[in-house]
């Protein structure tokens, strides 16, 4: 089918959700008091992207400091605060909520044929909880005591001793975790209770599967960090002996509890991204996904095994050798379900009629970046090499390739894929094609030299370095300019499209999951009559019927 332009004007038959309010208010009240999952998703989007920009600018400042050796721009203390903030903002405010809160909220109910999530009011509440947490985190920067300098990991004993606003920042993380839990509860209940007629578990789109698995991790992992954080706050406030070694506590136990959440959190970040990939690849290959059930199960497997591997963050902490070996072994097991996904995606493309539109190109760049991130993860998962590389730039490069190259890239891909559906406008395809190339170049310039510096011995979190690293640091800083420039470019053409873009059709890409059956942007409560699902999720023979609809 020919829809490469994607901008054929269509007569909008029904008022979209932008034009109808769920409550008696209009204007800003219609947004701030809405119970509509789509509006809440968009409210998350504006907040999350704002925080992402803040985090990116802090990252840019750090790179600027490292342009040349000597530490001329910031003091060591300022640099400590910068990397802590960069980590806290990017992890707690951007990557963890990112895809589930925005695209999960917007598309999960639509994709299963529901009018909304199971608990719409709770959904709005979790947005407010999220914003509260974010405000608390930002407040901790400006109060006397100064911005936190512990690193985002808050390791004991320094987090008990540091005079900076650690308690407030920890409380912010606690509040954000609460928001995450509420979203998880909402999504699990929605998937169990509100699937449309005929929408069996194995007819659900893979994005729903991935979000469902993620929601489970949010429910069963987040409470552990909540209590850990709470205990550190109590320890700081009342001098209760829990973790502080001066009172007999065990700092390694803190690390266990911290990573019991924070490792599964890595999968909270990456699983929804993998779900988006499983949506985009079949749509642009015009082929049903290869190994649907395997991909669905592999999401659950990743969620499960991901729960068993937290100890690989602690190889050099002094935990027992037996633990090191067990956790190393379990870590390698995660590669299996991840590999299942990668191979199934590639097999889906094989002999498909590929239409290289921007979302697809972003996914291609994801596959390269994420594979580099994943494979270097194996290097770190092996005990012997990890001892050499731990706390060096190698680790920094690895998790940026996985988190940013993986989840971050797919976040942008999802924006490109669903933008026409969410806003009813089409962005400039040529701009998007240029952006993906610039992004790929900038990204690799920024992070690849860190692998090299890492195995040369450059430690992470230093504001200064030996002259021998200068050329690599330079390339890296130049890359950061390209990358951040590209991100602003992307935001720019999206904003332009929002105001001036051409109208998008209801199905610009030729997708077949339920969101492409309804108009762009969707109406309030998504469907005029609730759909009855008869097809498999990626059955492209539907496209003919859809044209006649």
């Amino acid at each position, binding site marked *: 089918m020919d829809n490469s332009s994607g901008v054929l004007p269509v007569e909008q038959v029904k008022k979209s959700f932008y034009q109808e309010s769920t409550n008696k208010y209009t204007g800003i009240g219609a947004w701030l008091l809405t119970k509509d999952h789509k509006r809440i998703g968009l409210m998350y989007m504006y907040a999350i992207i704002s925080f992402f920009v803040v985090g990116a600018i802090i990252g840019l400042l750090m790179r600027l400091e490292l342009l040349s050796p000597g530490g001329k721009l910031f003091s060591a203390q300022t640099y400590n605060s910068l990397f802590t903030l960069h980590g806290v903002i990017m992890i707690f405010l951007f990557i963890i909520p990112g895809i589930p809160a925005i695209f999960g909220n917007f598309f999960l109910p639509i994709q299963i044929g529901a009018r909304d999530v199971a608990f719409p009011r709770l959904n709005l509440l979790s947005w407010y909880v999220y914003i509260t947490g974010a405000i608390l985190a930002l407040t901790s920067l400006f109060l006397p005591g100064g911005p936190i300098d512990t690193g985002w990991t808050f390791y004991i004993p320094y987090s008990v001793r540091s005079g900076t606003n650690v308690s407030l920042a920890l409380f912010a993380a606690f509040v954000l975790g609460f928001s995450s839990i509420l979203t998880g509860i909402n999504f699990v209940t929605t998937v169990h209770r509100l699937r449309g007629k005929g929408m069996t578990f194995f007819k659900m789109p893979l994005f729903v599967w991935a979000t469902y698995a993620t929601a489970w991790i949010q429910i069963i992992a987040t409470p*552990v960090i909540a209590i850990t954080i709470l205990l550190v706050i109590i320890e700081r406030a009342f001098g209760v002996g829990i973790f502080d070694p001066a009172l007999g506590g065990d700092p390694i136990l803190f690390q266990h509890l911290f990573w*019991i959440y924070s490792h599964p959190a890595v999968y909270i970040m990456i699983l929804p991204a993998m779900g988006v990939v499983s949506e985009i690849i079949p749509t642009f290959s015009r082929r049903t996904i290869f190994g649907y059930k395997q991909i669905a199960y592999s999401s659950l497997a990743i969620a499960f095994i991901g*729960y*068993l591997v937290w100890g690989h963050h602690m190889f050099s902490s002094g*935990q*027992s*050798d037996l*633990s090191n070996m067990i956790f190393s072994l379990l870590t390698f097991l995660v590669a299996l379900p991840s590999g299942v996904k990668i191979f199934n995606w590639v097999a889906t493309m094989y002999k498909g009629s590929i239409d290289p539109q921007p979302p697809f190109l972003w996914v291609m760049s994801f596959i390269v970046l994420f594979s580099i991130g994943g494979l270097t993860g194996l290097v770190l998962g092996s005990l012997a090499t990890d001892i050499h590389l731990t706390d060096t730039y190698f680790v920094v490069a690895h998790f940026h390739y996985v988190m940013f190259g993986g989840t971050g890239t797919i976040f942008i891909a999802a924006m490109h894929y669903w933008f026409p559906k969410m806003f009813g406008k089409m962005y400039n395809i040529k701009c998007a094609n240029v952006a993906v190339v610039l992004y790929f170049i900038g990204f690799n310039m920024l992070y690849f030299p860190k692998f090299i510096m890492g195995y040369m011995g450059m430690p992470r979190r230093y504001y200064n370095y030996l002259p021998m690293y200068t050329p690599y640091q330079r390339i890296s800083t130049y890359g950061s300019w390209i990358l951040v420039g590209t991100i602003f470019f992307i935001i720019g053409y999206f904003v332009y499209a929002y105001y001036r873009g051409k109208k998008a059709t209801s199905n610009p890409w030729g997708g077949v999951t339920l969101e492409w059956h309804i108009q762009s942007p969707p109406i309030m409560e998504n469907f005029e009559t609730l759909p009855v699902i008869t097809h498999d999720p990626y059955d492209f023979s539907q496209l003919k019927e859809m044209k006649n609809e």
Partner: protein
Amino acid sequence: MSGNKHHIGYGTYVIVWIALLAFTAITVTIAGVSLGRYTLFIALLIAAIKSALVINIFMHIKFDEPIFKIFLALSGTTILIIFVLTFVDILYR
């Protein structure tokens, strides 16, 4: 309306309550006797029996949707995993 409605009578609840009090009496009495290393084990066993009573009868899980039992098993397994893997470190450090 709740799909599987199974109302439990007052009598059942009172019987369960008496059983819970009885187990409390047993566990307090046993705590006074020195059983060495089994003390903790027995105390936890009795606590487990008591919580099984509360979960099954008071909290109705025995009569509710089967999926709730699966959820319960999932959260129980999670706690078990956390304990086992942490103690692999603590016991062999």
